[in-house]
């Protein structure tokens, strides 16, 4: 059984969906950030696979930059969380709804 591009794309999609699931249901902000990491990782798999099947490095480049972006996001995200936590003592998402309407 040959593993084709389609397999990888499907895998990527499934992982992406898992990430979406996490994004939507997580109330703990930290764990919500985990889910966004999953999203990006899922995409990375796809890029690597396409790159492989097309014999093209662009995909790998994209994946590489996505990793860099993910890393930066973590830094900023954690910074925000720490600032919030210092003030409110929690990182619960539901506690965060002073603005509405």
């Amino acid at each position, binding site marked *: 059984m040959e593993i084709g591009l389609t397999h990888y794309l499907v895998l990527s999609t499934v992982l992406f969906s898992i990430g979406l699931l996490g994004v939507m249901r997580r109330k703990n902000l930290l764990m919500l950030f985990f889910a966004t990491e999953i999203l990006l990782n899922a995409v990375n798999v796809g890029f690597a696979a396409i790159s492989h099947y097309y014999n093209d490095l662009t995909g790998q480049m994209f994946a590489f930059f996505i990793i860099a972006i993910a890393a930066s996001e973590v830094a900023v995200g954690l910074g925000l969380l720490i600032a919030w936590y210092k003030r409110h003592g929690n990182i619960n998402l539901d506690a965060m709804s002073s603005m*509405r309407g």
Partner: protein
Amino acid sequence: MELYLYIALFSPLVGALFAGLFGASPKTLLTGVVNSSLLFASFLSSAVLLGYVLNGQTVHVEMMQWIAAGNLYIPFGFVVDQVSVTMMMVVTTVSTVVHVYSIGYMDHDKGFNRFFSYLSAFVFSMMVLVMSDNFAGLFIGWEGVGLCSWLLIGFWYHKESATWAANEAFIMNRIADLGMLIGIFLVYWNTGSLQYDKAFAVMPTLDNITLMYIGVFLFIGAMGKSAQFPLHTWLADAMEGPTPVSALIHAATMVTAGVYLVVRANPLYHMIPEMGLFIASLGAFVAMFAATMALVNRDMKRIIAYSTLSQLGYMFVAAGLGAYWVALFHLMAHAFFKALLFLGAGNVMHAMDGELDPFKMGGLRKSMKWTFIMMTLASVALAGIYPLAGFFSKDAILEVGFVEHHYVIYTVLLLTAGMTAFYSFRLVALIFHGEERYKVFGFHPHEAYKFVLIAMSPLAILAVIAGSFKSTYFDMVTKILPNTEYHIHSEVTEWTMIIGTQLFVILAIFFAYKKYINFKGENKEFEKRLVYKVLINQYYIPYFYEEYITKPYRELSTVFWKKVDMKVVDATVDCIANGIYKAGENTRDMQNGNLSSMLRWMVAGTVILLSLAVAFGLAVRYADEISAVLSGLGA
């Protein structure tokens, strides 16, 4: 001659403005005197013009342009010809008398100056009406007299009934004016001009239907002003105004404007005899109809008003049957004696502190000798007894009916003549003869001022002698009106008719005297009869109008405002606005501030777009299969 024309026309206007200046100030005799003199000047000018016209010449001037738009050209143009000069004479004569009379009559009224202003304005309007050389000018006068009538009927504006009557008169006239206006439009669009001469010159080329329409609509206008059925109710109510007003406007001049219109438009009506017949029939009907109401009425002025209505019916009969000169002649004669009658009634009213019910009077001939004489004279003239004015004019109309073979009309008119005599002398008997019932009510009657009586005397004289002008008049006026002479071919028939009529009328007079000269108590039994009830309630027509037109109109208006405008039209607009706002209120919870749901919205949006994409993608990919399946289904 133009100078005289302008003097005749504008001196009343000058008077109106002059008096108007003092409108709000307390009474000044000056206004009365000045206005009367100006009217007299107008009268003199008219007389000069009459002399001029009698020589067979006419005056036609165009003062200035009024309205010009497109092909329409309306000037302020005035014409003094045989017809208008007749009217001018009538108007100026009666109004001069009434002006002088009013100085006495309105002596104690706060609105003395105002009254003269209105009265002169009325005369001016009436002069415009009769002198105009086009339909638009006629309409100016037409509306102007309507306005003055409104002002004068509602002169005592603190009285609810007076203002009500004024409004009724104005609005009813307006209904008719619409007809008139439509008639004018028809004339313009079919003949291209509103000038009498030009329009009438073109009319013979028009088809009959158009002419019919023109005739009908113009006559609707005439019906309103002359208070013909069914627009007659305002006239009786108009008696709320001061009595000189009733004499001038609602007896002698304004109400005859309708007749004047038909006479003026004789070339038109000549071409549509069917319409003429209708006019005549309506006239005959109104003559009878009004007379019946006069029979039982208990209001002095209303009785005279109904009598006026009845006489207007006569005039329309004549005009409708093509005897325009007869109509005009009766108009003139009627103006004199009816004005006299009203002025006399005014004297009586004055003497009785405004009391109008003749049943509360009686025996006044002792204290008001001259008034008694003059009113009797007027009544005799009205009844058409030889040799007074009424005889010559009214008999002529009867003859017209007979000669034209409209025997039904003739019969109706004859009967009406009897009734006329009856109610006139019923009134005279109740007021001047019999017991002095007024004493019960504590009245102290007194004769009017001397100068008032003197002022009335020209009318009295004219009421007596007007008949003698007949041939002069005929010669003059038939220069522009059809000069049909109405002679009954057999002398025997003629004499039988004249004598028969006279006898019939005299009989009616005696009957009235007999019944009312020694009137004691009221005839309760008679009052319970249906006939009496119908008549005293004016055939329930005012009731009908109130109940089925005025009230529904008022209610419908309220419904339109409160229900339709507020609840439907406006509410719809507000509903749209509120709907939008409510939509916002109801959906703002979408933004509930919770990050999870915000993320969900975002994912949901993507998924929806995805599903659309998939659906579209599949549809494109399997387009052939789908169309095959659909065609298999017969789609």
